């Protein structure tokens, strides 16, 4: 395979959630791709579908939901179609994830070392002893002090920062080509946020993996990611190089999103007027049309497709 093809390419991905009393359409034609050895951010308000996109990539959609359309191509396989059994071999090996609360991601009744070792044994042909030794090495490479002893400790004996390292060690154990970080910094104060992001960047660079950073906070993106995709209402609104998009956003939604974060630093909180559209129906027009100051009649009736504009892709009929 040539190294120029993207690591993972998502095309027109749509998903539906059906529960007892209603049907939701949280993803309605999501398209973007992640290049090899690139750090990419997926940014959007809560309810935009960004976490669900991550779940779809991992084949771990919540019960009651399914992919209705579209493809997720990775290494010439369509992840939208493969079986749970095949996915088991991909998860943790080719694609991995770290969650928001690292302590809650570790099983409380098993030692940290044994949990990392088990992941290694699932994906690699090594025995009990080797896997435990390697788990200790991994913890050490992530800068955990006294890894030999720490591997035998239980999660409740870990501090938050140590748990973060352990969760990352587990996620990176089999050198996945894509690491997803799902809101890794929310709830942390600014100094800790930077530490976590630095750690992620360093690990991903070291192992030549790609990173998909999922966050609602566009302000953490700049220093970490080379690419950014902005998501709203189950669609991608704008994708491109971070510097370009942060400095000169073109989609009105991106503009508003950046504005709401930059002003909040002066102490003046601005938010985007209106509320996030609940995904109860399939889209007919632009998902942002109801809240957009530039919206015209066509915006409500015409679904904007992602189209190239200079170095970026943008979905808006007005630009």
């Amino acid at each position, binding site marked *: 395979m040539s190294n120029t093809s993207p690591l993972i390419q998502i095309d027109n991905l749509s998903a539906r959630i059906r529960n007892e009393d209603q049907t939701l359409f949280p993803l309605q034609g999501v398209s973007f791709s992640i290049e090899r050895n690139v750090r990419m951010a997926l940014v959007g308000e809560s309810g935009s579908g960004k976490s669900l996109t991550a779940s779809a990539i*991992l084949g*771990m959609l919540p*019960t009651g939901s399914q992919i209705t359309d579209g493809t997720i191509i990775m290494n010439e396989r369509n992840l939208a179609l493969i079986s*749970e059994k095949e*996915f*088991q*071999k*991909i*998860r*943790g*090996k080719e694609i*991995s*994830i770290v*969650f928001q*609360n690292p302590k*809650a*991601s*570790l*099983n*409380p*009744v*098993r*030692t940290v070392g044994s*949990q990392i070792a*088990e*992941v290694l044994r*699932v*994906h690699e042909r090594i025995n009990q002893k080797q896997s435990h030794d390697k788990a200790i090495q991994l913890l050490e490479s992530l800068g955990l002090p006294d890894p030999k002893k720490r591997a035998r400790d*239980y999660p*409740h004996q870990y501090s938050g920062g140590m748990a973060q390292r352990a*969760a990352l060690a*587990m*996620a990176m*154990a089999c050198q996945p080509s894509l690491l997803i970080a799902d809101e890794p910094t929310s709830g942390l104060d600014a100094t800790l946020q930077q530490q976590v992001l630095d750690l992620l960047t360093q690990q991903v660079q070291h192992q030549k993996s790609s990173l998909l950073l999922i966050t609602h906070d566009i302000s953490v993106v700049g220093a970490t990611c080379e690419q950014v995709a902005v998501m709203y209402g189950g669609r991608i609104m704008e994708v491109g190089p971070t510097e370009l998009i942060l400095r000169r956003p073109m989609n009105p939604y991106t503009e508003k999103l950046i504005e709401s974060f930059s002003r909040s630093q002066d102490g003046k909180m601005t938010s985007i007027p209106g509320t996030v559209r609940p995904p109860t129906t399939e889209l007919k027009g632009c998902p942002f049309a109801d809240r957009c100051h530039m919206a015209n009649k066509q915006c409500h009736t015409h679904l904007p497709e992602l189209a190239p504009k200079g170095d970026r892709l943008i979905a808006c009929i007005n630009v």
Partner: protein
Amino acid sequence: MRILAYIGQRLVLLIVALLGVSIITFVVTRVLPGNPAYLIVGVQADYSTVAAVIEKLGLDKPIPEQYFLYMKQLFAGDLGSSWRTGNPVTYDLKSRWPATIELATIAMLLAISWAIPLGLVSALKKRSITDRLAKILSGLGVSIPEFWLATLLILVFFAIFHIAPAPIGRISRASPPDLITGMYLIDSILTGNMTALKASAKQIILPAVTLAFVIGAPLLRVTRAFMNEVLESQYIRSARAMGIPKQSLIFRHALPNVLLPVTTMIAVLYGYLLGGTVLVEYVFAWPGMGKYAIDSINSSDYAPVMAVVLLSALSYLIIYLLTDLLHFFIDPRTR
């Protein structure tokens, strides 16, 4: 060393709880009506004979002194005598406690074997037929009066289909095995007495099934609820995201976490069963502690009631202690 401190602390609590239990039961049983002295010497006896018996029993002393005497006897291993059977209570209990333990253990094993798997499966397959069945069974089990269920089982399996033997105690149409532990099933295996084994196994099935159904319901609920909670936890989601296969997710990741609340529930239920399952023993004429207690209450026989209550409180507390110890080993967070 922490384990020793832990055990010590638990033991102190156990002794305090037992003292409380003994005081309360002593007060309750002492106000039982009917003068026991008459039961011993007969109603026709003259006043002086009765007075002599009262004095001998210490019934004329003030209540606190009576309690003190009782506790003194208790520490000497003397639980008093039953006026109804004419035996020392310890002698009576020697045959009755094993009967209750045997029934309780079989019932507990049956309950574990249906309730836990069903609870796990219903949590794993939500809204399936199994899940619905589990909901119905646990609802019924919690609500059904156990004496009525016992009566129904006798109706169906004895009166209508003649499969089960008559509800007349631990063994019928055979002589009991030579006693070693006092539990008929174990003793007949130990002595190789197949006739007794068969006969006593037949007798134990219906009462054990009754109890297993009633006891299984809360066990099922707890298993299902905690399995649900654990399956939705982030560490299971995280382990799944690392490609851990389903089998390992269930058995190595989820199950150890569910085991903690489930073992507590098992302990509570087993402790309850060991206290004498009054109603079921009553219906099946099972000569265990519960029936002993009822018969004694009906004849105003203080000592056996007090002994049964103390013994069941003791077994409850000891089982609870053992569960705590078990948790000390399986739950790293307590260490």
